[in-house]
């Protein structure tokens, strides 16, 4: 006999498959609508936040813009739907959004059990440390015996404990409820070290009275790869999102920027010619025009430009490239070639 729980499961499974099947033609729907439905956060410094004119800005927002540029030739043709952490996957499953670009960590569970696919990594995040400049500490291995300010209820707490135990070091956790209180505790000198995800550390650092009095250590002690997510069952759309990101990375690698992209169309370099659609049509396999990558680069820029503008040295956050540098510059960002 089916009990109540089974019925609910059946009903929800039916609902998800139905919507999944109906939305298999995401590309056609998007072209018909004339805009990409993109799920972003409800405000995360440097990743997605509305600016003074009401336009969304950020590293995650640039993924949406890149997809819109590739598909529709207009990076501004995006409907931004702000989602909180709880409803983000449902919104994607139910078809309310077609791309979820909301600083979502790629994990096994999310990738395999939710009917979703991660289309790549646009930011390698992880837990890092911020210390007062006066202490003269340059690496996480010098933190033995430190008092550490942590926000409670986050996975950070567990990861930090694991790291210190694994390295046979002691630490004194000082726990706070909210990020504002954590900054306040650090400011008041209640701890030597403040820990959080590196993407958040930069935002917390700005809120100090003297941001220059604190440094963010280069060490990252956990893996939090953040990337755009799409529904399973529509491989064309999956490819479009994946290769939009790769196009930005390849453009950085070959030195193509939004400034020089027009000159680069006459480049002799075969890699650049293929990227910009001058040699063959590599958008065809995705149902796109040959100039798909040209549109991305000219309207959104390459990965370096996007990073610098939103979270890097050109932004108030001033996050180092670090793990997010290209593979040939000491980071992890690696895009397969366009061939």
């Amino acid at each position, binding site marked *: 006999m089916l009990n109540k729980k089974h019925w609910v499961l059946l009903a929800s499974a039916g609902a998800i498959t139905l919507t999944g099947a109906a939305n298999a033609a995401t590309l056609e729907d998007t072209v018909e609508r004339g805009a990409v439905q993109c799920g972003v956060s*409800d*405000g995360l410094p440097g990743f997605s936040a509305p600016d003074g004119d009401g336009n969304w800005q950020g590293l995650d927002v640039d993924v949406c813009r890149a997809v819109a540029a590739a598909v529709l030739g207009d990076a501004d043709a995006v409907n931004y739907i*702000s989602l909180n952490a709880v409803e983000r996957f449902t919104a994607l499953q139910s*078809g*309310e959004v077609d791309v979820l670009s909301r600083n979502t960590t790629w994990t096994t569970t999310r990738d395999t059990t939710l009917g979703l696919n991660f289309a790549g990594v646009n930011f390698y995040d992880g837990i890092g440390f911020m210390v007062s400049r006066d202490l003269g500490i340059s690496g996480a291995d010098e933190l033995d015996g430190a008092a550490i300010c942590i926000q409670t209820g986050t996975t950070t707490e567990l990861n930090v404990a694991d790291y210190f135990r694994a390295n046979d070091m002691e630490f004194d956790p000082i726990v706070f409820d909210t990020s504002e209180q954590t900054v306040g505790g650090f400011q008041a000198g209640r701890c030597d070290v403040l820990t959080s995800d590196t993407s958040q550390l930069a*935002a917390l650092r700005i809120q100090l009275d003297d941001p220059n009095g604190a440094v963010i250590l280069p060490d990252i002690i956990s893996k939090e790869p953040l990337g755009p997510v799409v529904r399973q069952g529509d491989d064309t759309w999956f490819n479009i999102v994946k290769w939009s990101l790769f196009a930005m990375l390849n453009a950085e690698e070959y030195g193509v920027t939004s400034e020089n992209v027009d000159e680069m169309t006459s480049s002799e370099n075969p890699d650049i010619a293929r990227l910009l659609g001058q040699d063959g049509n590599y958008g065809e396999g995705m149902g796109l025009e040959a100039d798909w990558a040209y549109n991305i680069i000219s309207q959104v820029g390459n990965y370096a430009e996007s990073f610098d503008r939103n979270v890097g040295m050109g932004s108030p956050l001033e996050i180092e490239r670090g793990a997010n540098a290209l593979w040939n510059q000491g980071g992890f960002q690696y895009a397969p070639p366009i061939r």
Partner: protein
Amino acid sequence: MIHNQTMIDQRPAPSNTLGPVAWLRANLFSGPLNTLFTLAGLYVLYLLLVPTIQWAFINADWIGTTRDDCSREGACWVFVNARFTQFIYGLYPRSEIWRANIVFGGFFTLIAWLAIPRLPFKRWVAVFALIGFPIAAYVLLHGGYFDLPRVPTHRWGGLMLTLLLASVGMIGALPIGIVLALGRRSNMPIVKSFCVIFIEFWRGVPLITVLFMASVMLPLFLPSGISVDRLVRALIGLTLFQSAYMAEVIRGGLQAIPKGQEEAAAALGMTYWKRMGLIVLPQALKMMIPGIVNTFISLFKDTTLVMIIGLFDLLGIVQAALSDSNWLGFSLEGYVFAAFVFWIFCFSMSRYSQYLERKLNTGHKR
């Protein structure tokens, strides 16, 4: 015998029984204990007020466009100033703001018209406010008709969205609440049990759960291809939720009318709707003004909960603006501004309800 034939001239009362001095003596310094409390109270006020005023006014920065214009010694109102348009209209496109302005203008004109007793044609204005204006406002704000560009609801926000949610909630909740309250007192078993179940269900779940169900679960159960707008989902949830509370407030008023009045009306041959509409409800609603306004005010503040389903009401847009990396660290200013705006609206509602009570007072006041 010598009689004093003239009256003693009137003299002013002793100076210590008149004016501010007397008031101070009577109310603040009437004994050693009260004097002590007064002084202690003044000291606490001094401790609280001086830093607040210094922060909010004296050391505050008012003029500028970027965070560098703020000295960080006091409040940085530059932030609120720079984001003011956004706080009012949300992410509504800048070029289309005139449409929102017309709606704002109409909204406040209609409210003023209905609230100021001297102005004529109240009945027609009320009909327009309840039927014509919402349609006109929707056409203007949403667009898509008469060559107006479409502005999807996810771009609506700020104070505009807060007022929209609150007024739709109020206008919807009051009639539904009245019907539910009458239904709950009805003798018809099906009507009665439906109303009881409806009211108890919506009062039994927290609003945050209702909004979550509407935004997270509902889309999964709807057939594909049918998607209900986020804002509409929130509006329906909010209205049904508040109508259950409203029903109970009004039922309280109905209970207070002696049964004899209804029986007398029935004896005169009045039908049910006449008895209710002419005898019971006018008295019940008048008595329940404080309770109804209480529900309205709590509804107005509850609208901030839509923030959790990704709609940027006034508080939501302030929080989103706080996460702009150019303006990190000004949360206090943002929240103080939001609190001030909410206070203005709630306080006005409260004052108007007190005025209404005095105006409608026909001898029940004790």
